[in-house]
């Protein structure tokens, strides 16, 4: 099932319309608006001359009544449509998954079984980390900090 959705910029003077396709493909949907220069003109109907659209897909998701109510409240509080709130939430989630997130989960899959097998305790590992922190301090920072202190005194 395909659909098409127009985008417009906040503050732009526009007439916003939602027009179901008159084409033979009734699965297509068009939501059109005007006032955006960068998007391609909507050309399927002379009646919405000057409007713009881009392709979107329609999906159906099932949520609990509680979540549904929360989303409606959020939408009302932010003066957005329920669809916009849902899309923004999905975009945020997708971005968080596709950004170059540090792969801590993979690191965990790699290291956690080793810690279990070798019975490494958290206390022991954190104590080791403190020792390393102290060593790094002496190797990398202490001399430079001491050299700086007379100047700052």
């Amino acid at each position, binding site marked *: 099932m395909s659909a098409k959705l127009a985008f417009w910029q906040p503050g732009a003077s526009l007439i916003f319309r939602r027009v179901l396709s008159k084409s033979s493909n009734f699965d297509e949907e068009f939501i059109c608006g005007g006032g955006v220069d960068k998007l391609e003109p909507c050309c399927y109907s002379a009646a919405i001359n000057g409007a713009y659209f881009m392709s979107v897909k329609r999906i159906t998701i099932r949520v609990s009544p509680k979540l549904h109510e929360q989303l409606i409240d959020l939408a009302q509080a932010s003066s957005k449509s329920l669809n916009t709130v849902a899309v923004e939430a999905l975009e*945020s*989630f997708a*971005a*968080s*998954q596709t950004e*170059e*997130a*540090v*792969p*801590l*989960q*993979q*690191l*965990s899959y*790699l*290291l*956690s079984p*080793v*810690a279990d097998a070798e019975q*490494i305790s*958290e206390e022991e*590992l*954190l104590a*080791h*980390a*403190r020792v*390393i*922190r*102290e060593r*790094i*301090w002496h190797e*990398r*920072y*202490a001399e*430079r*900090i001491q*050299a*700086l*202190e007379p100047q*700052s005194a």
Partner: protein
Amino acid sequence: MSVRVFADTSALLAMVVFPHDQAGNPSLAGEVLSLYVEGKFELILAQAVVDELDEVLYARFPDHWLEAATLLRPHAEQFVRRPTPAEITAVLPFSADPFDAPIFASALIAQPDIVLSNDFRAFHTPQAKLLWQERGITVKSLYGLLCVFGLRERKGD
């Protein structure tokens, strides 16, 4: 905008090495790791923290260190730069132990919403809290971060 969380080495190690307890249930660190995986907050790592992590892994997980380092290396540009001596000197009065000052300074460079550390002797002292407060940063333990997300109740509430 998601919450920006700066992880200390203690929290980071707990998340990647001890995500579950001996019974196999998620630990506090494991729950925080799940929140990160779900994109509930933005994790900020400092090069100074990764330096420590790298050395701990090299010493304690020698057979897996290279693979771990390979996982982290592509993200090096995201890490907060190492602090300058002047930046470290500036935070020395706030750290009970001078060894912690480079991490404190890294946190200030990152300007997160939350500093995440389970090292109570270093990051949760009155003078350290004064530094965080001055910079508009809150310090949280793993438990405290779960409270922020409503997954635990604050003790004493």
